[in-house]
C-alpha cells in the first residue's frame, strides 16, 4: 500500500469532479493502487450525493419528460442487445492504469520515448486547457534527474520501479506533490530497475514584458531537459 496520498481537500475536489483533468488523472492512477484513498473517495461521493439531493429545485414544464419517455422506445432495443457482458473488451495492456489506457493503447512497452539526457526519457501524453502538461517520464536505473526548482506545481505518480529524493523513497502508486516551496528537487531512480512515472506540470509562469516574451520559447522546452 502506498504511503504518500493526496490531501483530503484535493480528494474531495476529485470526487466532486471539479479537479482540473491533469490533476484528476494523477489522482485516479494513485487511487487505483490505493484501497485507502478509494474508500475515502467513496465517502466523499456520499457527501456529494447528499449535497446533490439537498439542492434547491424549481418546478418546470413536463415537455422534457414527454420527449424523454418517447425516446426510450428507440433506446430500449440498444439496451437489450448491448449487454455489458458481450461488449468486446479491448485487450488491456498489462501495467497500464485504467485511466491511461486510451492515452497508451500499446501499453508502456509501446511508448515512443524521447531522449532528454542519457538517463532520462519522456513521452508527452496530453496538455490540459489550463496549460498543464501530462507526460510519462522514464529514469534509467540509477539515473538522476538534474536538480530543478518548480515554477508551477508538479505532480508525480510512480507507475513502475521506484525513485528517491531528499524526502524519501517512492514506490508504485505513490503520489508526490511539489511546488515552489520545494527547492532543489533531485530525484534518483533505484539501482535495480528503470523508474516510470506519470507527471503533470502546471504551466510555467509566462513572462509578459516585450523583451521577456522572447524568452518564453526557451522555457517552454521540457521541464526536465536542462
Amino acid at each position, binding site marked *: 500500500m502506498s504511503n504518500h496520498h493526496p*490531501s*483530503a*481537500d484535493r480528494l*474531495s*475536489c476529485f470526487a*466532486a*469532479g*471539479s479537479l*482540473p*483533468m491533469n490533476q484528476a*488523472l494523477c489522482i*485516479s492512477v494513485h*487511487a*487505483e493502487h490505493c*484501497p*485507502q484513498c*478509494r*474508500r*475515502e*473517495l*467513496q*465517502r*466523499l*461521493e*456520499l*457527501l*456529494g*450525493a*447528499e*449535497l*446533490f*439531493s*439537498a*439542492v*434547491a*429545485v*424549481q*418546478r*418546470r414544464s413536463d415537455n*422534457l*419528460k414527454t420527449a*424523454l*419517455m418517447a*425516446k*426510450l422506445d428507440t*433506446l*430500449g432495443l440498444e*439496451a437489450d442487445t448491448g449487454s*455489458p457482458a458481450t461488449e468486446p473488451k479491448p485487450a488491456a495492456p498489462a501495467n497500464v*492504469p*485504467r*485511466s*491511461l*489506457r*486510451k*492515452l497508451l493503447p500499446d501499453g508502456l512497452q509501446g511508448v515512443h520515448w524521447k531522449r532528454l539526457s542519457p538517463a532520462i526519457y519522456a513521452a508527452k501524453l*496530453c*496538455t*490540459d*486547457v489550463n496549460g498543464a502538461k501530462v507526460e510519462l517520464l522514464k529514469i534509467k536505473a540509477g539515473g538522476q534527474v538534474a536538480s530543478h526548482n518548480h515554477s508551477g506545481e508538479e505532480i508525480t505518480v510512480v507507475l513502475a520501479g521506484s525513485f528517491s529524493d531528499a524526502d524519501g523513497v517512492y514506490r508504485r502508486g505513490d503520489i508526490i506533490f511539489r511546488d515552489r516551496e520545494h527547492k532543489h528537487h533531485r530525484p534518483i531512480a533505484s539501482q535495480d530497475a528503470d523508474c516510470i512515472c506519470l507527471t503533470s506540470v502546471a504551466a510555467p509562469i509566462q513572462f509578459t514584458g516585450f523583451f521577456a516574451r522572447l524568452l518564453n520559447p526557451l522555457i517552454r522546452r521540457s521541464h526536465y531537459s536542462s
Partner: protein
Amino acid sequence: MKRVAKDRDRDAFAELFEHFAPLIRSYSLARDPGAHLVADELVQEVLIRVWLKAHTYNSSKANVNTWIFTLARNCRIDYLRRNGRYASEVDADDLFAAIEADEPGPFETTQQRHTADRIQRGLDQLPVDQSNVLAKIYLEGKTQQEAAAELRIPLGTVKSRVRLALQKLEVLIRGEEQ
C-alpha cells in the same frame, strides 16, 4: 430502481424522472446559471444512462442518490470536455472506474448508510462559510482557485474550510494528517 432494471418498468422510470430531473437540472444550473438548454440536455443524458445502465446498478455498492450523482458528475465532466474546458481523450468513466470496481461487503454497506445519514444531519449544522465552499466545489464545479477568487478568500482558507467541514461531517477515515 429495481423495477426499471428488471422489467423496464416505465412507470417506475417516470417516478425516477419526477424525483431526479429537477435535481439534475439544478445541479447543472448551479454551474451555468441561466443555461436552461444545457441543463435539459444534462437531464436527458443522465436519465438515458439510468435507463440503459439500470441493470448494472448495484444497491449494495451505492444508494440511488449516490449512483445518480456520480452519473450526473461524469456526464457534466464529459460535456465540459467536449466543449473545450478539458483537453483530453479521457472519459470521466475512466477516471472513476477504479473507485467503482470495489465490491463492498455487508459491513461496508451498512456503514455507508450510517455515513450518509450522519452527513445529512451534519450538513444542516455546518457553518455557512464551510457549506458555501462545499457548494462551490461539489455543485458549481469550481476549482479551489476559482472558489477562492469568487469568495475573495485565500486559497489556503478554501482548503482549510473544506478540511474542517470534512472533519465535522466525519467523512474521513484516516483523519487529517496533511
